[in-house]
């Protein structure tokens, strides 16, 4: 199984950088289960990324999210589908569903996709995660490993 792991966010904004730290760890879990993972780290999702999606069997996006969103666990593992309606008004704020929709429109089929998101505590200037975000990241990784195992994605 060939997987693209795309971590995005701003690593100079403390917990906004959690996507960058999650991505290589997610790739390791995929590799441990026999998959072949390629990691891409970006500040934001951009239209040109969509062109390559068709080369993979699975897309895994890793991102931070602001408090008060998501399931309330502090992290979420969510299977996502193309959705053009989620576009923001500028390319600074598009989500993975929108990029998937763009890929589907321009290049046809897109592979199954999953978003691993972790709630941040602080988005102030600075490198490294807060302790709370770091703990949530570890929980998210454990949950992602279960998700992989449950779906037998080897």
């Amino acid at each position, binding site marked *: 199984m060939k997987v693209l792991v795309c971590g995005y966010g701003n690593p*100079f904004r403390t917990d906004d950088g959690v996507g960058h730290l999650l991505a290589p760890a997610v790739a390791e879990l995929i590799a441990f289960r026999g998959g072949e993972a390629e990691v891409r780290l*970006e*500040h*934001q999702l*951009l*239209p*040109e990324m*969509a*062109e390559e999606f068709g080369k993979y069997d699975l897309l895994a996006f890793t991102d931070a999210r602001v408090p008060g969103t998501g399931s309330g666990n502090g992290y979420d593992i969510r299977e996502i589908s193309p959705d*053009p*309606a989620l*576009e*923001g*008004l*500028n*390319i*600074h*704020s598009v989500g993975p569903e*929108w990029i998937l*929709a*763009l890929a589907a*429109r*321009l290049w046809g089929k897109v592979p199954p996709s999953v978003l691993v998101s972790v709630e941040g505590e602080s988005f102030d200037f600075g490198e490294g995660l807060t302790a709370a975000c770091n703990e949530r990241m570890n929980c998210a990784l454990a949950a992602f490993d279960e998700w992989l195992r449950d779906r037998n994605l080897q």
Partner: protein
Amino acid sequence: MENTKKNTIVVNPITRIEGHGKITVDLTDDGAVDRVRFHVTQYRGFEVFSKGRDFREMPVITPRICGICPVSHHLASAKACDAILGVTLTPTAAKLREVMHMGQFIQSHALSFFHLSSPDLLFGFDADPAIRNVAGLAQEYPDLAVAGIGMRKYGQEIIKTLGGKKVHPWHSIPGGVNRSLRAEEKDGMIAALPKLKDDLRKALDLVKNYLAENAELAARFATLETSYLGLVKDGNLELYDGRIRLKSPRGRITDEFDDSEYCAHIGEHVEEWSYLKFPFYRPLGFPHGSYRVGPLGRINACDDIATPEASAELAAFRKSTDDGMVHYTLYYHYARLIEILYSMERLEELLNDPDVLGSDLRITGNVTNREGVGVVEAPRGTLIHHYEVDGKGAIERANLIVATGHNNYAMNRGVEQVARDYITGSDVKEGALNRMEHVIRCYDPCLSCSTHAVGKMPLKLEVRNSRGDVVRTVTKE
């Protein structure tokens, strides 16, 4: 803002531009537009917090101002540092810097035209915002969307190849560059150009047809008769290293000076309602000395373009008016595409030059001059970095004049003109809002650069009554 006797409409922030701004429309008691201001409301202060840093760090620090045109800051900063060292670059270093610069122009202009502006032109200003965006473009004009994505990707790959990253690359260093170009990398860049040029020609046809079919709109839409400023080399369009030229609205060369002399010619006016300054040509004062920069500024300021196909396009462009000076703001898009064409042709020239594969990358030195000025054309216009250092090289003063600032006066005037045409009273239709935004979008301003700001850009509209109370708020997320 003085609004105690007026109704006020505030569009805040503007969408699909890079950064964050707002538009305030003051209405008279009978609902007519009285005054319009385009505000930039964020502040980061790179000029302040770079004080005390070693000047050699500036080419790494200043690109953080922006995620869209970091290469421009990287290069202007490196040029200012070269001046402090008092060195002249090796041919290989100078040409490799220009290779990255051409990649930057291609990707940034492609973003501006294909992703941000073309939906307005193709779907119309009154079209549903749900389709008037790059997703709608992908749906209705997939070939154009793919072409735009391809150009962006190409330009970004050049930046990444030389600078290690697409955003905030590190390639230029004081006195040169830190990496050479491999033959196979060069060959790959050359091989991709013919397809990109074909795509660009189609986009040019699209814009030319649009402007011909909408000649009345183009002639009226935020049109301003201004002076124009841009770099030239032997009179030709120049993007990396040339003299600064100012041309009058009638096409006379008002002045041409070395970039290191900018202070004597360019002043900066400040208004209390915006963090973005208003640069002007000192001999004429403010606002008479205001001018425009960016694609239209450069295309009007130069005599010609040194590459053949872009030169032919420039000749066609100038036939749009009797005297060859084009003041139509919508023609920024046309000028932008001509510059992509030039960038592709110039890139091809550079890549076919044996110097780009050289290994003589850097001239070393110590602080020779206590002051250095570096000027490049950023995609959005003339970018000036000016540093003063102490004997050890610590920054004592930094001054950055960015492209968006040069166009500040023109953006304000243009937005006001469109508001007068499309707004009466507080009932502001989506199309009117988008027309005002599109004026700003023509200039492709980078408000992150201009105030060195951070943030995302929802759209907020506030309507205030004659007492200054907000009576209506509309937000587009």
